[in-house]
């Protein structure tokens, strides 16, 4: 029973949570290892079973601690730890012995892969300290752990955190750490920073302005006896870690932890490896990533292109997107300003197309997103990314973008393909054209925005304009359909933008009506759809993005315990349909579908409209 821990905010796998104990504790949290032995603390180590000859003795010891501590202290049940390479079934046997302990109140337990998992409030990653520098093992143990335990259980990785790795460990979804390594480093004359560690000997000055470092200087520090020096170093090391923890919490709140990690992971090869290996666990990462966010996705490194948001965007275009009916494809370069159509350059392209625009389907080529059909240019992260631009695209970028374009051109056929591009964009078009054996007409003459190029574009396209053309309203509907398919899966567009529906509202605030009934609205901020109760009813048959609840009428927000079932495709911030015997509702998911089902605390959905079923 996770009665004492609640996840409040999420940023990918990272989260802000709260322990509701004798003191409220906000996670990610660095506990003072020394306090673990004190029965007055909010979190207590029940101690080692190595010293008890019998189970009864240990149980008695636990009863004593609980009596002193009260119900609202979290006790990590007595445990008989082995190191990670100890024989697995010995470990499990010992863990089962520990799990036999009886206790009421808030509890933690050691997690052992393969063991029967109970509903503790916290699980300890056994031997976490041994995994430092071993990214592969650390990640596989953690993922196993995450798979087994309830998503609203806190995870504690002991004896591993230092300022430099803290952000990455939190990024992976760990909630609780301790200051063991910071203290030990302090007593070893090691000075920890988020940028790495220094032997005190090797320093010429103190690279910090924390309260401990401000209280002294390097010369005085060196002059002290070991013990007094250690007190200050320990304080500094803990300060450095606390400051980093606070920064990371702020980053989670701001939804920008990934951007931080992409820099911070360079402090150590194993942290970079952790990031790369985690990215390759796409299902894990993607399942935790919000479908849309209102902050900029900043791509500054090679690994940015492996972000779940980017890969997901590309995959959904491959799997969910259907282009509007058009015979001419026009490939365009991206622009710094987003959405692209508000940029100077795109404004020029559109002007140059003039009336021919009705005949063409526009697809934008961009790194790291790959390709963006015009209909999806508003949709997160297409209108929400910023990237370092130097004009040079590295081979990995070129291969990735080309693979997206190749997939698209393999699936979708056009009578003519025009590319109004230069430089790397053109290289990519040529790579793909050659591979697929197709012809692409290039219209740019050195500079896509030059009057000559624009004129050539205009001329070329107008000469090709003989096929199907689309009305203005159809173009608006195409946009809405594309977003619907992107968001709710293929075919959703036909349901939410049915034959005979009408479009209201200026770009980009389109709404779709069937008669007087509104079905959906485009939210320009995220480029996603909000759905009405009518829209929800229409979509209900598909069963997608649906949360099933019991026979009650929810209000304001739907809590996790009220969820009977939820579509595992639901991601945080997804628009979802809530249905139960007594009500149908729509709202914004606060967690993913799996988490809704498996959690017993926390807000599952923020409701927007609720309709009772009479």
């Amino acid at each position: 029973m996770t009665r004492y821990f609640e996840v409040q905010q999420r940023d990918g796998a990272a989260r802000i949570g709260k322990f509701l104990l004798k003191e409220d504790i906000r996670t990610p949290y660095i506990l003072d290892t020394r306090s673990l032995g004190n029965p007055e603390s909010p979190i207590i180590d029940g101690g080692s079973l190595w010293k008890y000859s019998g189970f009864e003795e240990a149980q008695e010891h636990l009863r004593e601690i609980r009596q002193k501590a009260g119900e609202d202290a979290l006790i990590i049940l007595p445990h008989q730890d082995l190191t990670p390479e100890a024989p697995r079934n010995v470990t499990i046997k010992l863990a089962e012995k520990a799990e036999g302990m009886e206790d009421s109140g808030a509890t933690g337990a050691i997690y052992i892969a393969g063991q029967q998992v109970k509903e503790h409030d916290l699980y300890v990653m056994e031997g976490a300290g041994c995994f430092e520098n071993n990214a592969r093992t650390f990640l596989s143990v953690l993922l196993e752990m995450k798979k087994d335990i309830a998503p609203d259980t806190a995870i504690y990785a002991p004896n591993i955190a230092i300022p430099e790795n803290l952000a990455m460990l939190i990024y992976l979804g760990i909630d609780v750490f301790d200051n063991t390594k910071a203290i030990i480093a302090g007593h070893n004359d090691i000075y920890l920073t988020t940028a790495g560690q220094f032997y005190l000997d090797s320093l010429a000055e103190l690279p910090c302005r924390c309260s401990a470092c401000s209280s002294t200087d390097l010369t005085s520090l060196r002059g002290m006896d070991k013990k007094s020096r250690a007190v200050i170093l320990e304080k500094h090391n803990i300060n450095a870690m606390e400051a980093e923890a606070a920064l990371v919490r702020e980053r989670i709140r701001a939804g920008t932890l990934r951007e931080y990690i992409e820099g911070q992971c360079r402090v150590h090869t194993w942290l970079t490896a952790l990031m790369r290996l985690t990215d390759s666990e796409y299902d894990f990462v993607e399942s935790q990533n919000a479908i849309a966010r209102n902050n900029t996705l900043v791509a500054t490194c090679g690994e940015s292109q492996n972000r779940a948001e980017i890969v997901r965007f590309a995959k959904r275009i491959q799997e969910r997107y259907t282009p509007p009916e058009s015979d001419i494809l026009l490939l365009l370069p991206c622009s710094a300003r987003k959405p692209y159509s508000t940029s100077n350059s795109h404004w020029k392209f559109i002007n140059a197309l003039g009336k021919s625009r009705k005949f063409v389907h526009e697809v934008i080529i961009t790194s790291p997103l790959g390709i963006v059909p015009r209909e999806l240019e508003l949709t997160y992260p297409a209108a929400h990314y910023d990237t370092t631009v130097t004009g040079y695209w590295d081979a990995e970028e070129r291969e990735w973008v080309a693979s997206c374009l190749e997939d698209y051109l393999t699936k979708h056929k056009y009578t003519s393909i025009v590319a109004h591009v230069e430089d790397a964009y053109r290289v990519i078009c040529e790579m793909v054209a050659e591979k697929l054996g197709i012809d692409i007409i290039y219209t740019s003459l050195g500079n896509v925005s030059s009057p000559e190029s624009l004129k050539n574009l205009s001329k070329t396209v107008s000469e090709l304009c003989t096929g199907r053309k689309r009305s203005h309203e159809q173009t608006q509907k195409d946009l809405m359909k594309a977003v619907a398919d992107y968001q709710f899966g293929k075919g959703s567009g036909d349901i939410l933008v049915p034959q005979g529906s009408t479009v209201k509202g200026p770009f980009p605030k389109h709404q779709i009506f069937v008669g007087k009934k509104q079905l959906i609205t485009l939210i320009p901020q995220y480029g996603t759809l909000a759905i009405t109760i009518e829209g929800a009813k229409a979509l209900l048959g598909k069963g997608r993005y649906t949360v099933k609840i019991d026979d009650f009428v929810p209000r304001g927000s739907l809590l996790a315990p009220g969820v009977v079932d939820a579509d595992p495709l639901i991601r945080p911030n997804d628009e979802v349909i809530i249905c139960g015997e007594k009500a149908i509702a729509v709202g914004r998911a606060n967690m993913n579908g799996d988490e809704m089902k498996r959690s017993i605390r926390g807000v599952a959905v923020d409701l927007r409209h609720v309709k009772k079923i009479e």
Partner: protein
Amino acid sequence: MSLNKAVLDIRNRQRVKPSPIDVPAATWTGKDVIESGEIDTITIIFKTSGCWWGKAGGCTMCGYVYDSAQDVPSDDDLMAQLEKAMRKASDFDRFMVKIFTSGSFLDTKEIPIEVRHRILEELDGDERIVKVLAETRPEFVTEENVKDCVSVLKNTDFEVAMGLETSSDVIRKQSINKGFTFQSFVDAAIAARENGATVKSYLMLKPLFLSEKEALEDIVQTVRDAAEYTDTFSINLCNVQRGTYVEYLWDRKQYRPPWLWSIVDILQRTKKEFPDMIITSDPVGAGSKRGPHNCRECSHAVADAIRLFSLTQDLSCFEHLSCGCKDLWEQVLELEDHTFGSPILD
């Protein structure tokens, strides 16, 4: 996988070089303390067919199993080993002989009873020898076996040495994989003492998986538990021997040998509690990464103090020891109790 299987797997992966079977595995001279005070010693490690328990897997820290002979030594081979070893004692006037087999001297599969008799007779015949110590697992310390030895050693004291390691059956089983209980040690000790032998108990500081403090307290408790059954304690400090399970985990940064400050603390506390008991410790490999160690600066001085105490039993040996790293050790004592399965490394 069981702990024994894990140990055995490692054993099976070792390649042992063949060596002549008429030469002891090792022999050295040294000093020890007996009731009458300091005395010269000669230690003989017989190369036998090996420890039966070790062959089935054995103890997690024991690398002595690789000292056994590849082929079974004949009786004459064993006697030849004795003869070669005893040459080292030629200069001694009065001394004690310590016999080890990397297994059990009283196991007739290792030392056939005739050989046992021939060895003991030969030692008894040497008038310079005042005491013979023989190490064995407790299952061989039967009334019959003790009597047999004592009856041969007419003019020589006989001491049975057993590796009790710890009085905790949990630790002995789940960390050391030693394969007997405290009760079997008690029975053996009683059998020895009631039949004219004295008893020496070897303890093991810091077996696998225990925190520094748990390990320390375990030895203190063990001395309390075993004091009434023993005449002498010798506390071994776990060192990382080749081909052991301990080495396997140490290699993977999952084990750190004990601090020398821990044994200093143990010796101080136990000697104060049992002032008449002889309590010794030989800090083998002290100061090396594989051995018990403090920091680089003090390890050797502290080890010397431990050795001196072991001979003199005088607690003042420890009086002037100090080093900056003692503070670190104190932190380790406190913090390693809460690392949940990872050691605090250097």
